[in-house]
């Protein structure tokens, strides 16, 4: 990797790390199922950005683009399933609090 692209990579790397840490903090700290899903979204967005940057630096944008589209499609399915599960939990418990999800222990 050349020096100029290293600068670009570290600039993007800073923001990617920022989004990643936000997402991880969101998943770990929240008590709401919907916010946990939003945290997941943030994590996946950070990774998508990373794929775009590495594809650009590697002069391989075509491959990176096809990867990004695939990631987006899979992400949509994941979020739909997560949303469906959260909705069903809401119908059972009448709230989305993770502290009430303590049936399974041991």
């Amino acid at each position, binding site marked *: *990797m050349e020096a100029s692209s290293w600068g670009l990579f570290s600039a993007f790397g800073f923001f990617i790390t920022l989004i990643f840490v936000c997402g991880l903090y969101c*998943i770990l700290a929240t008590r709401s*199922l919907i916010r*946990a899903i939003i945290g*997941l979204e943030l*994590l*996946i967005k*950070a*990774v998508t950005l*990373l*794929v775009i940057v*590495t*594809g650009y*630096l*590697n002069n*391989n944008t075509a*491959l*990176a683009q096809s*990867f990004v589209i*695939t*990631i987006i499609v*899979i992400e949509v*399915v*994941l979020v739909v*399933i*997560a949303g469906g*599960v*959260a909705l*069903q*939990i809401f119908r*059972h*418990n009448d709230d989305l609090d993770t502290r009430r*999800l303590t*049936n*399974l222990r*041991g």
Partner: protein
Amino acid sequence: MSSVLILVPLFGIIGLNMLPRNVARRAAFWFAAAVFTAEILLAIVHQPAFWTEALVRFDSFFRLKFSVDSLSRIMLICIGVVSLSSLVVAKSTVSDEKEAFKFINILITASIGMSGIVMVKDIFSLYVFLEIAALSSFILIAFNKDINGLEGAFKYLILSAVATVLMLTSIAILLLDSPDTAFSTLHNEIAHSRGNFIVTFAIGLFICGLFIKGGLVPFHGWLPDAYMAAPAPVSILLAGVMTKACGIYTLMRIVASVFGFTDPIKNTMMLIGMISILVGAFAALGQTNFKRMLAYSSISQVGYIILGAGTGTFLGLAGAAFHLFNHAIFKGLLFVNSAALEEKVGTSDMSRMGGLSERMPVTGATSVIAMLSASGVPPLAGFWSKLLIVIALWQIGHYAYAAIAILASVLTLAYFLYMQRQVFFGKLPPGLEGLREAGNGLTLTASALAVITVGAGLAFPYIYNHFLLPLKEIFF
């Protein structure tokens, strides 16, 4: 023509959903059974020409590049056998026709994902098939829409998604240096830049993601919840092949053909395997719920597989691959038994059972076979795989690990004996006098799996020559 295993079920599902409703519901079971049986037969009757020949037009149109070697064949047999058991159990436990149709659709999707995982030669396609398998298993866990299933599914979903994010990050970083993501290209690139901090970081992230997917000990929190909360046929699928295909097989494949067996990777795998064996076994000792005990026992047995694979020698990998197969069969069998208990007794709480083997002779007898195989008692299949793993550890000089692996077998025997005494021996508790044996579907599946366990143990020389020796070509 390896892509047949992906394309036929895929178009089959689409076709089934276009048929008139009552025809489709009747045809679905037989279609799924045919697909799984074909998968088993194709993998056993090994015709190299069949796997390598390209499917005219389809392969170039879908840009599918699959290849099947001996490790993939072992996994394909596991996937076929366990999916078939899950299908037969579902037929007798899911009574509503509409629900059963939905179940079979998602089961076939899951098996497409797993078959894809074991056949791909490209790390990004691997990610895609991992997600197909994982997404369908979330739906399957929450299938009954009861609160426990939903809770287990959500926990699994979050941890699994974090794992795939870690793997994707690793793929993106590896893409910095590599023109594409095929296993062979990545292998050369990584061998080139060994010791580079960023590459080591990427390898660490990927392996961490696979440990989460496989439910190994520091990352095992989701596994007992998901196994326990899932409906009976889904537990069979999850415990039998899902976590093996998504986590353990993938780990073996990626380490063998991309990252290479370096000392840090080997030591990490052996250490994690050892911790999983011990933590899983001790946690299983303290359980009162049948399915939860089996889940912790799974963690412990998967530890053996990683311990064997971590040796990096042929014998260790052969033992790991054979234990992978054995574990799929005997754990599938134990979960079939738990399905029978759940259906007849109505609970999986062991303190409310006792003396069931006089009322349910087939379930009792098959569970004894499965438990003896799991603890490594000689003529049964589990003995041979554990023996191979212990010999491999001894050969490379890890005497302490070998000794602990043997002693942990005693722990396995201990918790399974406790389970047998609680559930199948002793006196019947009041209220269970009128208990009958479970239906034909459940007992036939259990007997078939028990026959495979005994047969694989007795025919070990044949299996060693025909399935395990060819592994040499992949790894060395």
